[in-house]
């Protein structure tokens, strides 16, 4: 299955992935309109320190601890994509407790949020991948 992979060697720390993620989620046509004067809360974010930077987002584990741990069944795997059903989520944060990548985060709407590979948006290729100017985030099949 195609997943998002990150290679810190090429990450520039430009943070565009975060903005493209937020834009992708907005379902608006124009990024300026979507993100103007908004504090974004993306599902991918850059960790950076001393010239090293890389993006972190859900790994879509084959054996996802978050899905196994979800107390309401809100997190499931659909066609390999770890997906959140926000209706069922009660924000207990057990997923945040268990995800070893720190890839699940709180959101404003009362449910947790996580990367769902843009399957619910109009992007096709995940927005962060499209927006990465240096091929540091790729969407591909790996062993």
């Amino acid at each position, binding site marked *: 299955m195609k*997943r998002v992979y990150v*290679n810190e060697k090429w990450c520039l720390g430009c943070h565009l992935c975060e903005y493209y993620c937020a834009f992708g989620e907005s379902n608006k046509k124009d990024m300026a309109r979507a993100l103007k004067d908004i504090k974004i809360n993306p599902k991918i974010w850059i960790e950076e320190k001393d010239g090293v930077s890389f993006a972190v987002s859900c*790994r879509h584990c084959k054996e996802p601890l978050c899905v196994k741990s979800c107390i*309401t069944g809100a997190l499931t795997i659909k066609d390999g994509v770890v997906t959140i059903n926000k209706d069922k989520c009660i924000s*207990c944060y057990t997923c945040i407790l268990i995800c070893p990548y720190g890839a699940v985060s709180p959101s404003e709407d009362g449910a947790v949020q996580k990367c769902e590979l843009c399957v619910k948006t109009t992007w096709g290729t995940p927005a962060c991948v499209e927006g990465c100017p240096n091929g540091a985030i790729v969407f591909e099949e790996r062993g």
Partner: protein
Amino acid sequence: MRYVIIGNSAAGIGAVEGIRQVDNQVEVTVISSEPYHTYSRPAISYLLMGRTTEEKMKYRDDDFYDKMRCKILCGKTVTEVRPAAKQVVLDEGSVISYDKLLVATGSEPFVPSFDGLDMVSQKFTFMSLDDARKLGAALRKDKQVLIVGAGLIGLKCAEGILDKVRSVTVLDLAPRILSSILVEDGAQLVQCHLESKGIDFRLSTGVKYFDSNRAMLVNGEMVGFDLLVLATGVRPNTALLASIVDIDKGIVINKKSETSAKDIYAAGDCTQTLDISSGENRIMPLLPGAYMQGECAGVNMADGNMSFDKAIPMNAIGFFGKHIITAGNYSGEVYTENVKDRYKRLFYSDNKLNGYILIGNVEKAGIYTSLIRERTPLDSIDFSLICEKPGLMAFTKEERNQKLGSVSL
């Protein structure tokens, strides 16, 4: 071949899914004493609060049993296991034979014997959907509620009903709330938060006796109530396997979820598990662990090979928007951080993280959890960095590339 699973909650469901990972053919029967589709027990407080509905709190979709091609017997209680004959007997007398059996009977509320308790007319426990329905039906704006037990169940119950009643008083023998998961200052922090929302506490004191609508406390105080909720703890349902398998605090199982008896597996709250953060065998009535144990049992029943050996106590809980995440045990040296909304304690010794408590800011807590679960040597990471801020940056470049790029460089 027929596999029989007693229990329809996290461990039982985990087992069904575990079996189906390996074997699509074998017959699977789930027996549940409750008459419901599988549901999330921890969600019952949210149900009372109105944050979820009975429909949404279903643990799996409606077509789950069909999809898993598994037979579900609801509202039937197993009264006897006959290991020699490989049969279970149901309460209505019928007998079901099995090739492999999973006991996932969970736990039940433990209620100490209080004088006068039987005279209390409106008393409740808070574990099952039935409990929640009963309590929910009794809630009125003019009712005073007394909750005995300031643990996870008692406080979630308190949060769930606070808006629907006149007052909520929580009582505990321990000097602090959530004594099993918080240390003193953290408990104080949370208690203040709960008090600010209107919950009353009586700590370091117990019930001497009940007198109809009043509780006489050990400290001499008399507390009146209309509804009494008993949240004094749970204990594993092990009776079914008594004298069949080894039982200690709970049913004894190995890391493959096997009991001491052939072809009998057990998982979930009815078992005792090795807590790798402390090295002790404990009862850990926690949903994630139950699921994983159940899944492990299912895979192994179906002749797959799985081990579950990373159990640690861990809790994610929140009250009125304040989130608490804790894991492991609280021994060793302590890293402390106390700023504004961020309460953080990391406990470590012998180059390992033993446990942690986060209150308020719980972002990326799972990275700490993984350090405990994986027993990561702290000198292999940038521990001072990770103390400050959980993140993958603290790992080596190779580790990061492995984690984020699935590549070993």
